[in-house]
């Protein structure tokens, strides 16, 4: 048994099976957005509706009153992708302008283009707050819960600094508004059907998520308390250790501080990259998870490892600073060193990991778009 949707095409009613209706709607929505710059949009849309109607009529008869899904699929196939004639002209002009280099590439028109490039968007549907995590999850094709956990952990470990990243993303990354945007956010052919089922699923999970969120907050508070306590103890331990540090240790401290700072920076970047790799590829730079270990265990293990190493490094550095007895200028130099090294590592990641590059390019594109929009609004 199939649910039937009644639609009107150019003033004539047709009955379509629901999945077929969803596909047709997506086809027409996509056609409309393809034609959005064409002055003939309304007319072409009416023509297309009429053509679809005629094709529907051809499959209907005295004892067949409903167009089934496979028939709708065939009709959409027959209609072919809608390409604006003006767009084609523009493409031809661009090809002519680029001259000799246009030998092959210039001729490719809309229908030859690959599916829309994956882009980073904020997705408000099913978002906790602004949908930044949701958009990243769609982009990386992972469950949004992992992205949220990563954001919360990063916020905790960076003493809240990471939250600024969220705020920046919130203002820089565009909001997915049209079905086309959402399709681009997922980087895959998008159907209204998918969106509807996603919306249904999210609605069902809403109540559950609420409870989960309360529990998570409680855990987070508890963790914060423990973390503060641990820090305090650490500080006490180092200050007690200070009188023991001898003169020679001071000299060594001066040499080792930059090295330790570099190690710390490298560790932080390596941590973020391996977390990224773990979530997206379920392996750390090609080093797969041992069989039978779930992803969440691996993430917790990674975070714990990072925390252990970075805390001990910090402890050593703390002691070293006091031992070497450096003044304020040293702190600035140390900071610069950190930033420089982080930038270097970032460059390496950008150059050698296509995934990282795509994400960064996408962010740049989003920033550009925002800048253009702002300047357009002002002018």
């Amino acid at each position: 048994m199939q649910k039937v949707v009644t639609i009107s095409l150019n003033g004539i009613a047709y009955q379509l099976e629901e999945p077929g209706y969803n596909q047709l709607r997506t086809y027409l929505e996509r056609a409309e957005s393809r034609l959005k710059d064409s002055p003939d949009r309304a007319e072409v849309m009416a023509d297309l509706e009429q053509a679809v109607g005629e094709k529907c009529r051809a499959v209907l008869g005295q004892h067949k009153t409903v167009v089934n899904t496979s028939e709708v699929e065939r009709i959409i196939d027959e209609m072919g992708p809608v390409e604006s004639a003006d767009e084609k002209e523009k493409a031809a002009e661009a090809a002519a302008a680029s001259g000799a280099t246009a030998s092959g590439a210039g001729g490719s028109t809309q229908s030859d283009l690959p599916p829309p490039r994956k882009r980073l968007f904020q997705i408000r549907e099913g978002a906790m707050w602004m949908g930044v995590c949701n958009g990243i999850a769609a982009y990386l094709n992972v469950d949004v819960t992992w992205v949220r956990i990563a954001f919360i952990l990063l916020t905790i470990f960076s003493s809240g600094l990471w939250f600024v990243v969220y705020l920046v993303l919130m203002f820089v990354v565009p909001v997915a508004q049209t079905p086309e945007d959402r399709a681009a956010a997922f980087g895959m052919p998008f159907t209204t059907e998918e969106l509807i089922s996603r919306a249904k699923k999210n609605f069902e999970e809403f109540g559950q998520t609420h409870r989960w969120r309360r529990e998570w907050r409680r855990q987070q508070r508890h963790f914060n308390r423990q973390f503060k306590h641990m820090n305090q103890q650490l500080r006490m331990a180092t200050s007690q250790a200070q009188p023991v540090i001898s003169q020679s240790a001071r000299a060594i401290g001066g040499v080792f501080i930059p090295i330790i700072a570099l190690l710390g920076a490298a560790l932080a970047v390596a941590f973020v990259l391996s977390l990224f790799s773990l979530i997206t590829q379920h392996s750390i730079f090609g080093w797969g998870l041992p069989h039978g270990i779930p992803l969440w265990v691996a993430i917790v293990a990674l975070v714990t490892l990072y925390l252990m190493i970075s805390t001990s490094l910090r402890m050593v550095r703390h002691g070293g600073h006091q031992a070497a007895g450096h003044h304020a200028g040293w702190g600035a130099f140390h900071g610069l060193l950190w930033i420089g090294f982080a930038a270097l590592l970032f460059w390496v990641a950008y150059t050698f990991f296509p995934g990282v590059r795509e994400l960064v390019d996408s962010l740049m594109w989003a920033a550009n778009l925002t800048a253009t929009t702002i300047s357009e609004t002002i002018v």
Partner: protein
Amino acid sequence: MDISEKLSPIRKGLLEFVILKVVAGDKVYVADMLKLLGPTEFATQEGTLYPLLSKLRREELVDYEWQESEAGPPRKYYKLTPKGRTQLSTLNEYWKNLNKTLADLGN
């Protein structure tokens, strides 16, 4: 690069010319145009044809008139305008020259 990939932009570029030729005779309905072009190299689909026809109409090269049909709502029948006819003869001339050039080259 595949040979058919090289030929596809040529076909696409010629489609406008082909459409003008198709509507040059009697008034035609889009479904009939598709049927006519189907077996040729210029086989196309509604998704391409409707936007193209609307553009040609905006350029006043073709026009349409409504005609009642026995089944369903009235249909648009396309025909060539005088301006379209002039352009078609220019294109025909150009095509002939092109053919001649191609035939003469390398001989």
